[in-house]
């Protein structure tokens, strides 16, 4: 068993990054995730593993520092919160286009605009449907506990390198600010230059040896037919992710007449609602997508003919619900419930929404 600690989600993700053997963190402070860079600066990982931590002059610079280091085959992590992630989008699009691995954490706060510093899940579209320009996808993990904040760092890098694709860990102010018990993984060594050369010599830009052609990291191809071909390649990669990398959790779903679909902190809140409902004799289960992209389409579709209705719960005006509806292909009635703008719904509010759904309101 690894070391047990009581940590905030933001601290756990930072510590997990050090332990995963990450080479560099570049970031810019923004509430409610500043603890990530604060923790790293206090921890001085350069003395523990040689990991670089740098506070950039802006989110624009931070994401492009990520782009640079990732281009060299280095493991790079960054974090921000919604308005900052909006500024990241140009860089993320480049990173996706140039097929660079990296892990980006978004500790979501309420918007639009400067919004609020309180928790929200209103960046679902931004994470799963593009965010920046062009046809690209991020692999999006939605932790619902501090433990998952820590665990998804290593998982994120595994996926990022397997597919050479940026990975987004989308949590929110609640998961970021709360403390829970977390079991920390043992320290992994950082890759040596030699290891990086062995693994990534075919694409990474760390200096051209005589044995190979130069490596070019770019998302540009002025020849549209080549750019289309590149896009086909990207799409094929995303189909592979959809086929092989879907993660989800089912709680009390075996005998369920109704489903709540919720992710991240909304899933935690809804777990309580399921308990409250079951105590009242309502047979309801919780279906929790862990990957928001690729979304567990088939797995949710399997409930067609089994459940009478679905309540899609999220801290937004209704973004997740679009994927829920796509998954069940109009074969199950789906309703949305959620507070937003920084408000967190209570387990009782979710229960009331469920009861209204059952009553047909």
């Amino acid at each position, binding site marked *: 068993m690894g070391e047990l600690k009581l940590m905030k989600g933001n601290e756990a993700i930072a510590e997990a990054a050090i332990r995963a053997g990450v*080479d*560099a963190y*570049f970031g810019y402070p923004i509430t409610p995730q500043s603890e990530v860079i604060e923790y790293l600066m206090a921890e001085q990982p350069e003395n523990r593993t040689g990991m*670089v931590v*740098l506070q*950039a*002059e*802006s989110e*624009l*610079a*931070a994401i*492009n*520092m*990520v*782009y*640079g*280091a*990732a*281009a*060299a085959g*280095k493991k*790079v992590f960054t974090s921000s919160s919604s308005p900052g992630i909006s500024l990241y989008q*140009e*860089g993320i699009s*480049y990173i996706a286009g*140039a097929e660079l691995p990296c892990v980006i954490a978004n500790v979501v706060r309420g918007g639009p605009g400067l919004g609020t510093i309180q928790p929200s899940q209103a960046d679902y579209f931004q994470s799963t449907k593009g965010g920046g320009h062009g046809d690209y996808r991020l692999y999006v993990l939605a932790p619902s506990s501090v433990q998952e904040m820590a665990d998804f760092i290593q998982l994120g890098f595994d996926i990022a390198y397997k597919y050479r694709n940026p990975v987004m860990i989308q949590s929110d102010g609640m998961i970021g600010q709360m403390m829970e018990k977390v079991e920390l993984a043992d320290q992994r060594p950082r890759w040596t230059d030699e290891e990086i050369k062995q693994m990534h010599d075919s694409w990474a*830009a*760390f*200096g*051209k*040896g*005589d044995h190979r052609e*130069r*490596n*070019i*990291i*770019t*998302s*540009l191809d*002025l020849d549209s037919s080549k750019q289309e071909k590149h896009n086909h390649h990207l799409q094929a990669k995303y189909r592979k992710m959809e086929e092989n990398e879907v993660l989800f959790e089912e709680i009390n779903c075996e005998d369920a007449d109704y489903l709540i679909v919720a992710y991240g902190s909304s899933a935690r809140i809804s777990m309580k609602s399921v308990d409250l409902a079951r105590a009242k004799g309502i047979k309801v289960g919780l279906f929790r997508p862990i990957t928001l992209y690729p979304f567990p389409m088939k797995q949710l579709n399997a409930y067609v003919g089994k459940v009478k209705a679905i309540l899609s719960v999220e801290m937004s005006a209704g973004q997740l619900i679009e994927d829920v509806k796509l998954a069940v292909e109009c074969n199950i009635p789906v309703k949305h419930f959620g507070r937003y703008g920084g408000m967190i719904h209570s387990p009782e509010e979710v229960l009331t929404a469920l009861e209204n759904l059952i009553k047909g309101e």
Partner: protein
Amino acid sequence: MDIKDIVKEENLVYSKTNLMTNNVLSYCPGCGHGTAHRIIMEVIDELGLQSQTIGVAPVGCSVLAYDFMNIDMIQAAHGRAPAVATGLKRTMPDKCIFTYQGDGDLAAIGTAETIHVCNRGEDITMFFINNGIYGMTGGQMAPTTLEGMKTATSPYGRDLKKMGNPLKITELIAQLPGTYYVTRQAVHTPAAVRKTKKAVFKAFEVQKEKKGISFVEIVSNCNSGWKLPPVKANQWMVEHMFPFYPMGDIKVDGHLVNSNKAEVKS
């Protein structure tokens, strides 16, 4: 004498730069970019740094610099080359990292990155090609466009009241403690090319010593954007660009050169 005698080895005075690829340059005839590329690649070759060097290409005419420079390269978003270079250098402190940027990239959209990379004193080399115009997008006004200069977005000439002043970004960054060697050169004559090559050598030497930013501005022409034939464009550059962007070292060994101190104060 037949041609075979002429091309004999002992008669060779110049050959294609080793580290330039065989791709046909995409630059307009007479443009300074090709010469600037060649000089940089020659120096990297002469220093034996090909396997140690990673270059960062900008957005602008030189967006395809990686097609011509036979080293590992990264194409950066518009203005972000200094941030990309920071990511590279921080994770590979012993590699040779340079950016190659135009005036729009370095002095307009990327001003924050330029200022901060210089202020942090990252151990990288920056090449700044200043032709006072946006070449790739078809000749619009740049931050460095001179007063009265006609461009696609200042068709009646740059009006300082309406459009602001041409920005001497090089003098500006020379003020920052993180810059160690700052110079302004040109590539329009063989003599200028030789001087520039010396400056490029020095810039990479400074990087090797990890003393902070080495920054080489190359004032260049844009015949297409300026709508002048190459020779006239160079003449115009000498007559108009050089008085405002004077040639020579601005900061050497971490110290501002005297003439520049006066220049900045005025």
